[in-house]
């Protein structure tokens, strides 16, 4: 097959390209230029692009850079900034996967005659006995990224490859080292690419939106104090006193409500904009609400692209904007996912 391998300059996508090549595919490496502003790795992440290009050269495959900066601004950065003004906590990496990697890049690949797009995500694509495609957790529990690629549907899965999803990270690094790939010992990226470790979220948002001071109140409405910027407060974070947590953020009223851990517990939540791997599912499932969170038992009922999740045991409130991903009872297969509604 002719495969476009998205190469970020990290070890996972380097090995993905290597495995594709070893499997006999015709591989072209592509690095996307997404962010033009400051980042921890320099303008346009030039050093990461250099790494990707040098790995491609070592493998003897072509390497290109596509500029999807406009798409990234429109579909990832602008919504990220906007969400904070509404007291919503988005996951920009998931939006990037949804709108850029598995949309814009996949469309470009299709246009240019490629059969599939591959990435270095730790997830696996399988096939049921009746020929339906499945999305499953990566083999390395600690590195599993099925949560961030949960939005793929059957048509997308058919044109997607995750070559390293079946590998343990330690083996993957060993493989990279065995052929002296320059990315073999490169640390994993941790954070949102457009937020620098020096400036952080505060400086990024501060350059783009005016922060509003807010009042901190308890559940009875008693004023407890002030916060400098309600836009930076996230539900569930500690604050407002010892053993107190943020229960709610109302950016319009500039109010932050705090309470005890018990006040934070909810029996259910509503999830919008659901996408399904292979059609809507009702009933008992496992539900994961953050990239490295545990999947917990719940019962779901679907209504169009909205679902209601009833926890088996009450759980801490999920911040609106977070992606909520459903897994089957065995905790291996992704069923679908969506975005936690503000309720």
């Amino acid at each position: 097959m002719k495969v476009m391998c998205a190469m970020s300059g990290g070890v996972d996508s380097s090995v993905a390209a290597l495995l594709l090549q070893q499997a006999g595919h015709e591989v072209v490496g592509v690095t996307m230029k997404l962010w033009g502003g400051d980042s921890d790795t320099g303008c346009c992440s030039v050093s990461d692009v250099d790494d990707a290009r040098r790995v491609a050269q070592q493998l003897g495959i072509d390497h290109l850079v596509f500029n999807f900066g406009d798409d990234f601004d429109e579909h990832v950065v602008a919504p990220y900034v906007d969400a904070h003004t509404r007291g919503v906590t988005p996951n920009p990496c998931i939006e990037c996967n949804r709108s850029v990697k598995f949309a814009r890049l996949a469309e470009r690949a299709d246009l240019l005659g490629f059969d599939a797009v591959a990435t270095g995500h730790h997830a696996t694509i399988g096939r049921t006995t009746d020929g339906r495609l499945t999305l499953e957790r990566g083999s390395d529990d600690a590195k599993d990224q099925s949560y961030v690629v949960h939005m793929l549907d059957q048509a997308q899965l058919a044109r997607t490859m995750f070559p390293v999803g079946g590998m343990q990270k330690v083996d993957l690094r060993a493989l990279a080292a065995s052929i002296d790939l320059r990315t073999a010992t490169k640390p994993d990226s941790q954070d949102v690419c457009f937020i620098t470790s020096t400036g952080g979220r505060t400086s990024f948002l501060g350059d783009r939106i005016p922060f509003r001071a807010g009042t901190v109140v308890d559940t009875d409405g008693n004023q407890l104090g002030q916060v400098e910027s309600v836009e930076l407060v996230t539900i569930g974070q500690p604050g407002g006193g010892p053993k107190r947590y943020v229960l709610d953020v109302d950016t319009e009223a500039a109010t932050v409500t705090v309470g005890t851990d018990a006040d934070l517990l909810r029996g259910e939540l509503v999830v919008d904009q659901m996408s399904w791997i292979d059609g809507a599912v009702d009933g008992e499932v496992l539900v994961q609400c953050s990239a490295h969170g545990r999947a917990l038992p719940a019962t779901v009922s679907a209504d169009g692209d909205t679902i209601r999740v009833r926890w088996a045991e009450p759980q801490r409130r999920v911040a609106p904007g977070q992606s909520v991903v459903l897994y089957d009872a065995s905790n291996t297969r992704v069923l679908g996912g969506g975005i936690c509604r503000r309720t």
Partner: protein
Amino acid sequence: MDVTEPGLTYLDHAASTPMRAEAVEAMMPYLSELYANPSGSHRFARRARQAVDEARDTVARVVGCHPNEVVFTGCGTESDNMAITGAIARHGGVAVCPAVEHHAVLHVVEQLGEPAGERGRVVGVDRFGRVDLDELAAVLDATPDVSIVSVMAVNNEVGTITDLAQVARVVRRHAPGALLHTDAVQSACWLDLREITPHVDLLSLSAHKFGGPKGVGVLVERGGPKVDPLIIGGGQERERRSGTHNTAGIVAAAVALDLTDRERVGENARLAVLRDRLVAGLEDRLDGVTETVPLDHKVAGSAHVCVAGIESEALLFLLDEADVCASAASACASGAMEPSHVLAAMGVDRTTALGALRLTLGHTTTAADVERAVDVIGASVDRLRNRATPGTARSAS
């Protein structure tokens, strides 16, 4: 000696044109047995020194200046940088340039002063990319301390020729104390530099744009030193540009410039025919091809079109697969295509500019190249347009 890769249809001469075989041959001795440092004091060094001096004479003859006015630098960008930052370092004040300059000028002007840009002024252009002379005059009138104005002779993206005699008249009248610099990097193959030089104080060239090697630039400083040097050290180039001479490169650059100058009139005529055939061929073959600048406003080797309904990033991939080398706009440090600042300044809307295609011809271009390019581009654009379904052919909104 054919230095072009066989089978390749190379239409990216404005990025770099193949070295002239004579230039390659001329540099060889200085890469091997004649290795002495031209600044040395022994007879071996004097041979190298003589080669640099003779190269300087040749460049001066083609440019139309005195040999003492020729400074060899490391590249065209260095020459541009030295002109602008050197002028501000020596004279203070403000630098002015049009918005379509190469980044080697534009980024310097935009970053001058504290805060960045405080000592730079960027002037608008007309729809062909020529500096707006009325706006230039107004900016010069409104800015009493302009020390340098930089206006390119030929635009590197769209090929537009600027009449520097006209520009000079405006600058001399509205800013009599200012230096006039021209980035003539894209001019050497197409224009008689002797007709440009008298109008300016400073002029930049780059050897690899006219069949010389990469890593050699020229800054002409008419009437002696006008700006402070950028590189300080051993005092080479009469203390205008320190650093050991790139003897081989300088010798080869002079050979290439001389050849280019001798063949210029004939090559202009030959390549204008091929270029016109290329543009006409694309217009006949495809709908929605717009010539960005009319042919009579630009140099003979430049074709620049905007192709509706496609993105040049995708088109260039297919051309590359078919062994056709072309370009769109300038690339950033990562290698990604940047939306063209030149087209934006000319008032071309962003969606149209996304379909930009630059095809530039040069001394190795043949009629067969042009024919093949029309075929391959035609087929590639058809393919992109046919495969693109609504929603995928997105504009960059």
